[in-house]
């Protein structure tokens, strides 16, 4: 099966290469700064079944209009690397001069990136950083900072001691790993008095609810929860806490401090109600905006240097390209009503 898929993929790649061999020179030679209108941008969405990515998918056409990007109809790879490869080939054969993608499998995308590079088609990778293969720009929030911020917030609220449950994402995803590692490191160095229970929920609400319920039964003195993704972990966590009568305001000594990641509207509502305490807002709008911004710049032939940018972020050098690390603000009761947060702009 695997061989079959690889063989078909390789055959399709070879075809695509052959078909585009003659045209691939044109954008490279004629791609001056005047070619803004001429370059179509192809985009692939990674999935359509999570709240965060749905918001991103919705922002893309809006931001495309705003930035004046000639956007092709988006494809969707449904979290499947084989579909992403096929979609990329389709986009290229339809004349895309730059590709925006969000490869959820950062290793298996390498050969696609290589073949795109040979065709001189720049790639903007959103949310994930491909392991190898050339990328024009990675647009991504610093996921390590999520873990770091969550750790600092919880550590401070708990006064450096007590027990904390961490509802982790899938360890096969670089973002889940980054959050977990940063959280672990920060807890170990800054708050050694805090015990962390790591629960491998694999972005699954059912597992999260069972694990949290069991852990609370075992350790009724748990005082903090860190959820890697509000989209999947929020509802189950609130339900478990409610069943245990632990959904009380922060002033109550029984209150369990909850920090989330994502920044979806439901998390903001829970913060306003005092049910959870903070979330790190993963900027869906900025992801869409800067993905298209860099795709357009790539078509226009612009280049970027490592260093600070004009939008509060930092470009860093990777072995295979550049990465723009977008800011991800910590949202608490104090700034939850800030209209610039994307979670307050949806609907």
């Amino acid at each position, binding site marked *: 099966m695997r061989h079959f898929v690889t063989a078909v993929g390789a055959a399709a790649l070879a075809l695509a290469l052959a078909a585009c061999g003659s045209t691939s020179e044109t954008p490279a030679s004629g791609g001056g700064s005047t070619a803004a209108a001429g370059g179509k941008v192809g985009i692939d969405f990674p999935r*359509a*079944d999570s709240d965060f990515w*749905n918001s991103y998918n919705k922002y893309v056409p809006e931001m495309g209009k705003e930035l004046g990007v000639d956007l092709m109809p988006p494809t969707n790879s449904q979290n499947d690397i084989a579909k992403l490869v096929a979609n990329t080939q389709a986009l290229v054969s339809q004349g895309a001069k730059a590709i925006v993608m969000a490869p959820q499998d950062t290793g298996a995308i390498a050969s696609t990136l290589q073949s795109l590079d040979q065709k001189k088609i720049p790639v903007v990778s959103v949310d994930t950083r491909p392991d190898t293969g050339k990328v024009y720009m990675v647009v991504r929030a610093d996921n390590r900072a999520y873990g770091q911020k969550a750790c600092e917030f919880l550590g401070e609220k708990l006064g450096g001691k007590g027990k904390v449950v961490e509802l982790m994402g899938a360890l096969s995803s670089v973002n889940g790993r980054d959050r977990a590692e940063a959280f672990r490191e920060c807890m170990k160095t800054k708050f050694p008095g805090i015990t962390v229970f790591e629960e491998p929920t694999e972005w699954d609400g059912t597992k999260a609810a069972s694990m949290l*319920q069991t*852990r609370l*039964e075992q350790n009724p003195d748990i005082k903090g929860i860190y959820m890697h993704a509000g989209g999947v972990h929020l*509802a*189950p966590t609130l339900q478990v806490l409610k069943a245990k009568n632990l959904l009380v305001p922060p002033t109550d000594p029984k209150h369990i401090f909850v920090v989330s990641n994502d920044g979806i509207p439901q998390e903001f509502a829970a913060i306003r109600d005092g049910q959870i305490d903070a979330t790190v807002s993963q900027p869906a709008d900025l992801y869409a905006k800067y993905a298209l911004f860099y795709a357009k710049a790539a078509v226009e032939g612009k280049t970027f240097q490592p260093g600070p940018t004009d939008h509060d972020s930092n470009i860093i050098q990777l072995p295979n390209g550049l990465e723009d690390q977008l800011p991800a603000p910590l949202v608490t009761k104090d700034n939850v009503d800030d209209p610039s947060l994307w979670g307050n702009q949806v609907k």
Partner: protein
Amino acid sequence: MTESAVPDSLAVRSRGAGLKLGRFRDLTLVPVIVLLLIVGAFADPVFMTTGNLMNVLQQQSALALVVLAEALILIAGKFDLSLESTVGLAPALAVMLVIPTSAGGFGLDLPVALAIPLCLLIGAAVGAFNGFLILRFQLSAFIVTLAMLIVVRGLQTGITGGKSLFALPPSFLYLGSATWLGIPAAIWITGVLFAAGIVVLRFFRVGRALYAIGGNTDAARAAGIRVERVLWVVFIIAGALGAVAGMLETGRLGGISANQGDGWIFMVFAAAVIGGVSMDGGKGTILGALTGVLVIGLVENILTLKGVPGEWKNLVYGAIILVALMISRLAGGKAQD
């Protein structure tokens, strides 16, 4: 009752095992459960508390209902993979018909009281459609329900736009989150449905008919059993049970995510098969399937209590299921099928 007593013992004997061994087969997992209870008690002092064991039952109640549904279908010699998708679609679609557009609904604003009946109806409808394709259209149950697994999940992703539904009517969440007489309602409901399943399959003519059909369809037809009609009803009941499972799960989680139920079917088959239900039809009991669910729930619970690292959890989990299979094979003394 007196009428069915004769075919009852006949059916068991015709399995070639004799009444005693046939009964014993239900309970081959009991040593495994005892072993798990002992291991669990040593692993963590919290394990043996009522609170924890109650949690295990509550956490497994939705899965258990899908296992019940699958066991009925397997015993009748058919297959249904699409049940895991029904667990997501039935509550999602039912809720979307009653909640306002602002909360992600269709804007039909049907009375909230209809949500639960609608949910059951949708599950039954999926089952009926499966039955139509398999029985009237004469397609392979495996392929039909595999396609339906994708179709039903796709329908849910399509209508919800992939979003989770958060703003649900409290009455819809009630059954999955309420507590009756100190025990979660989900456990009561699951317990009652299992008891009904055990009694019907053991003592009622229609229940015995499932074994007859699963064992030898032609013989069952010759014996005057209306095979198609019985099977169709089984598919419809299974779909409705999937919907109940979805409702209990929704109540437990407080929201419906686009992937609710996703991947369950592997656990469902594992539970049914280690519980002694044959994939070839005609063999196994509901009680056996229940012990399979318990084994899976206890393993899950012990792994969580011990804090097995995420990277290794699936390996340990799978290995324990294999060991459970081997123990039940040794205890049962018969070749697995």
